[in-house]
């Protein structure tokens, strides 16, 4: 029963997405792309977590493995698949299968499956090639060796004309769907979870903790380091294949070291050594960048942040204060999410405002219950935030001149601002919660129970600024 929780969550999520994808003709292509991107991010973050988080090997080249998978599989489906719009149109594997009576509707998923496995194996081979020579490298040296590998892959790919060279590879058939991505995200998580909960998982962690001691108890550290790279690369390759067969075009510039860094950020933010954490961080970060694209979204993200700050002190208090505090943050986050789905306009904004007001009420209640100085401080922040929120969203005409001008400037520059906000949030998050979302702990019943129990130590480090938590 104890170990069922993660399976339950993954199963629920997969079901939800599966059902959702069934009705995906109703959803906008934008939303579908977002869900696909989130799934791919989950696969990438989890597989990197195996290498960086659990085995302690500092790899900065994950985008390189993804690129290998993407290009290998794309080249195969493009030249051999027989899909419309490709050189092999009419023939190829599709044609051959049609010849023995298998229709394209059945053959395409099969081809994707084969392509995925090829992508995985190709990337895993690359992982092997990276893992073996770099065995003697430690820490930062390993980081840039892997960075170098990623860049070499990118440069080499961009010189291969058969896959489009520097201009990019177009015409890849769209074979990926939400269901495929969800399924593979689930497979990745379950596989890694099972692996890490076994003796092999303990072996990986022992390599991270102390290589000398690990060898002394019989763990072949070489084998496990290389294995981590190989398995991690396999799933990165799978992610690459899914990516290629959704976007339908590939460009070497999508697989730079910056992209590797983005995945590292997901792993660190989620907590190294926590699969649930890195998956959550992958989803949140992908969503965040999308939500920030609109002015509405940016405002509600800022609001969410303000609510979090307001209830931070209350999270160390009584159970009621904590529950209300988490609800406040949740409601604000929901409002931000709704800007994606419901968006601007007369229908959307009232719902978002409603969620915002609910959030503010929970925050105020939480701070009130928490008592003492927190009551005042948190309440002030929450009230300021809700007033600003309402003014900007609903009562623009009430804003004085300069503020109105500021609002218009922000509305005009949202896409640039989005990245600045993202960066600022990154810094802020690391400064306040450096061990990651779940603090490096894996999601489990025990963790959830401990959150609900009255605590003696603060939930978040406050650096001894004298909160009366005893």
């Amino acid at each position, binding site marked *: 029963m104890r170990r069922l929780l993660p399976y339950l969550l993954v199963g629920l999520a997969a079901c939800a997405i599966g059902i959702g994808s069934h009705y995906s003709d109703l959803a906008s292509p934008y939303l579908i792309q977002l869900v696909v991107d989130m799934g791919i991010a989950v696969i990438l973050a989890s597989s990197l977590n195996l290498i960086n988080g659990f085995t302690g090997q500092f790899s900065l080249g994950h985008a390189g493995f993804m690129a290998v998978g993407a290009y290998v599989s794309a080249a195969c489906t493009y030249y051999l698949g027989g899909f419309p719009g490709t050189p092999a149109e009419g023939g190829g594997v599709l044609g051959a299968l049609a010849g023995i009576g298998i229709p394209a509707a059945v053959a395409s998923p099969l081809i994707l499956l084969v392509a995925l496995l090829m992508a995985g194996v190709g990337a895993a081979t690359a992982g092997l090639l990276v893992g073996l020579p770099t065995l003697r490298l430690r820490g930062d040296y390993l980081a840039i060796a892997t960075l170098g590998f990623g860049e070499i892959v990118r440069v080499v790919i961009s010189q291969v004309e058969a896959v489009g060279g520097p201009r990019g590879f177009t015409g890849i058939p769209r074979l990926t769907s939400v269901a495929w991505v969800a399924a593979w995200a689930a497979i990745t998580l379950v596989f890694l979870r*099972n692996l890490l909960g076994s003796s092999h998982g303990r072996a990986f*962690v022992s390599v991270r903790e102390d290589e000398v001691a690990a060898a002394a108890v019989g763990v072949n550290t070489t084998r496990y380091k290389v294995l981590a790279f190989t398995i991690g690369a396999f799933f990165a390759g799978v992610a690459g294949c899914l990516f290629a067969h959704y976007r339908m075009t590939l460009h070497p510039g999508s697989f730079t070291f910056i992209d590797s860094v983005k995945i590292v950020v997901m792993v660190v933010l989620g907590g190294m050594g926590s699969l649930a954490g890195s998956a959550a961080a992958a989803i949140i970060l992908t969503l965040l960048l999308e939500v920030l694209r609109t002015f509405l979204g940016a405002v509600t993200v800022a609001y969410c942040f303000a609510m979090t700050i307001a209830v931070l002190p209350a999270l160390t208090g009584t159970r009621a204060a904590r529950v209300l505090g988490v609800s406040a943050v949740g409601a604000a986050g929901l409002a931000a999410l709704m800007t994606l789905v419901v968006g601007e306009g007369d229908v959307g904004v009232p719902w978002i405002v409603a969620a915002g007001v609910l959030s503010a009420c929970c925050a105020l209640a939480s701070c009130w219950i928490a008592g003492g100085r927190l009551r005042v401080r948190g309440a002030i922040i929450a009230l300021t935030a809700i007033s600003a929120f309402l003014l900007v969203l609903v009562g623009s005409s009430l804003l004085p001149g300069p503020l109105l001008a500021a609002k218009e400037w922000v509305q005009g520059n949202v896409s640039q601002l989005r990245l600045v906000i993202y960066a600022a949030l990154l810094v802020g998050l690391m400064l306040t919660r450096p061990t990651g979302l779940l603090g490096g702990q894996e999601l489990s019943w025990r963790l959830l129970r401990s959150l609900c129990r009255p605590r003696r130590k603060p939930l978040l480090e406050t650096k001894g600024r004298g909160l009366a938590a005893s």
Partner: protein
Amino acid sequence: MALLQVRDCTLRFEGLTAVSGFSLSVEPGELVGMIGPNGAGKTTVFNMIAGVYRPQVGSILFGGVSIVGLRPHQIASLGIARTFQNVRLFGALSVLDNVRIAAHHTARYGLLDAALRNARFRRQESLIRRQALSLLRLLGLSGAKNQPAHSLPYGLQRRLEIARALAARPRLLLLDEPTAGMTPVETQSLMHLIKSLRDDLHVTIVLIEHDMRVVMGICERVIVLDHAVQIAEGTPAVIRNDPAVIEAYLGEVTDEQQ
């Protein structure tokens, strides 16, 4: 046949000879002690036996088989386990996991079995878990089994290291200063524990120690090293009176003990 035979081993680092012409023969079931001033080369001998360093000269036979040149994890699988001078636990892992990891090389399931969580995996895992729990009970660590190893008090950490070494099912156990930093009470109880490990579990033990009560108390045979060279060997009573040993080592220690 001797369980461990070290013959004439010499280990040199650039310019420094750490161990010179060292020989040691350990019969199965013995409890041998190694003493000597700091820097004499005792831990280096352990490191040579465990495969961390490779002697330039000499041979090491374990159960009749040469182990020079083998990698540490291979030597561990053959049946030699060790603890470290400075405790080297897997801090983030739980106490139970620290012990279970040592059973890894005995685990009979592969990656796929683990991924699929099949019957073989479940059987092996429950076996490993049972064995680990019984070891924790033996060493008095059951209560802490789910705590992260780094949160244990020092004395318990040392015990955990021994439990972990035992979980690797060794025939030979090398203990490097097991009672370092312990109070007299802790030392006494650990002393008896080590003796019972040899008596009940039939593990051959070689230990490095500075605490003479332990050496005199439980070791049947004592080897003395000084400046990379073996200067004496014999029963504790003989060693105590050996003039070379007294001059090099024992004299100073006796003053401290008072």
